[in-house]
């Protein structure tokens, strides 16, 4: 579904990603794990067009993502839940969801998508008229995921969905990811929370200093010495 080939990217003279090869197949859940500053967020931003790579190619279902204007990439079926949620804090929950359905094809099915998201998150229905910035972190994360789902994506990019949340809420977020997967959506998830994310995804890549160190199925990674020593502390 999504294929990155030898992608280099950076900010100005700062190089963040080196020769990234990564693919996600339809129906899969794939994780990208690694320490702070490894380039995980940059990777997500490159896929959704917020920054453009200096080298390499990205294809989504056969379409060249790099030839697509940034605001049309969501139309290819890629929805990005950015790091720190990035809700519009002084818009209501419903207006935030409305923004997620901005593109014409989603706009036409706005009511239907809204029902879908409200079914998934009944809490959002209760709070639809509340300003997004006044909700708790977990609720804001639900709203951010709901906003991304409004565009009826084929691929959901989740950037650190557990960041800044209480352990109980982190658990809920991962349960939610499982439910979204069960609905048939393809998921690419970036996480520092290695142990928990490996229980949700089928495969994962370990990103360190802008390069992919190792990749493999969740079971393989859980068993690998590199991961066990550096990330699981066993």
């Amino acid at each position: 579904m999504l294929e990155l080939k030898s992608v280099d990217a950076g900010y100005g003279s700062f190089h963040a990603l080196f020769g990234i090869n990564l693919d996600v197949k339809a129906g899969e859940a794939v994780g990208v794990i690694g320490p702070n500053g490894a380039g995980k967020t940059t990777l997500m931003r490159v896929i959704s067009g917020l920054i453009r790579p200096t080298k390499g190619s990205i294809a989504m279902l056969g379409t060249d993502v790099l030839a697509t204007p940034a605001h049309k990439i969501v139309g290819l079926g890629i929805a990005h839940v950015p790091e720190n949620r990035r809700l519009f804090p002084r818009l209501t929950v419903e207006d935030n969801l409305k923004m997620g359905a901005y593109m014409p094809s989603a706009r036409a099915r706005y009511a239907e998508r809204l029902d879908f998201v409200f079914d998934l998150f009944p809490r959002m229905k209760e709070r639809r008229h509340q300003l997004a910035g006044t909700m708790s972190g977990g609720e804001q994360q639900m709203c951010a995921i709901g906003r991304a789902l409004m565009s009826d994506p084929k691929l959901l990019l989740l950037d650190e969905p557990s960041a800044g949340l209480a352990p109980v809420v982190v658990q809920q977020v991962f349960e939610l990811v499982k439910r979204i997967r069960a609905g048939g959506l393809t998921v690419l998830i970036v996480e520092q929370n290695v142990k928990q994310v490996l229980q949700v995804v089928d495969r994962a890549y370990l990103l360190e200093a802008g390069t992919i160190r190792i990749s493999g199925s969740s079971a393989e990674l859980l068993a690998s010495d590199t991961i066990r020593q550096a990330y699981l502390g066993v």
Partner: protein
Amino acid sequence: MGSFLEIFDIYLLEAILNGVLLGGLLALLALGLNLIFGVIDVTWICYAELVMIGMYGMYYFVQYYDLSYYVAAPLAILLVAALGALLHILVIAPLLSSPPINQLLATGGVLFVLQSFATVAFGIDFRNLGIRLPILTLGDMHLSYSRLLAFGAALVGMIVVYLFMTRTFTGTAIRAIAQDRQIMALMGVDAKKIYVVTSALGGALAGLAACLLVLQYDVHPFVGLSFGPITFLICVLGGLGNFVGGFVAAFLFAEIISLGGLFSDLEWGYVLAFAFFIVMMFVRPAGLLARRS
């Protein structure tokens, strides 16, 4: 003594009502400027000059092309809306990431360009539509129809903008982009397009104000100076970019001008309003309804 009080109260009521009528018009002017500042984060120093061009548009549509007022008004609104969009595309967009001072200087430059253009193209004569609306007499009070019309139209204009901003996808995107410019692409929003739409909307508000002002004031190349500064003060008093604050500040200013003018000359009303502004800048420097951060 009793009869004096009676007359005095009528004048007071008349002044209050006139203040409300003026407030509606000032609120409309402030809304356009606030919209541009709140969404695009630039200040159109030449905002009042866009209104001036709109007033000339009305003058030529009505006096030269013999159009009726109600046909000319939508044309003038469209004209200034197009001018607003053009201002953004030609002047603001290339400077979006420049320091604010450069943006101020550039739109300040446009102010002089428009004034000089008007002087050369239209001359320095005072012009008017030749329409004199009657005065409405309510008991002992005298209210001009042109002010009532201006107030009503300003109110309708603001309600239309409110509905547009809250009910439509584009309006919601305009409010969203003011809060987080960077992630708009993730929503499928072309930020450049939203900025042009916002600029056209700001221009349309200036155009509507022009249609209403031209009923009360003669137009000349420097007419912008008579309401430009006060529009800026209102926006700053309400908190730049704060729509509700601007609305409240407009009525506050208008009442001070109107009531101050009642107790002495109209000029003193302006002096009082500006003095009030200076004091408020010390008391609430971020504006009347500043958000606590």
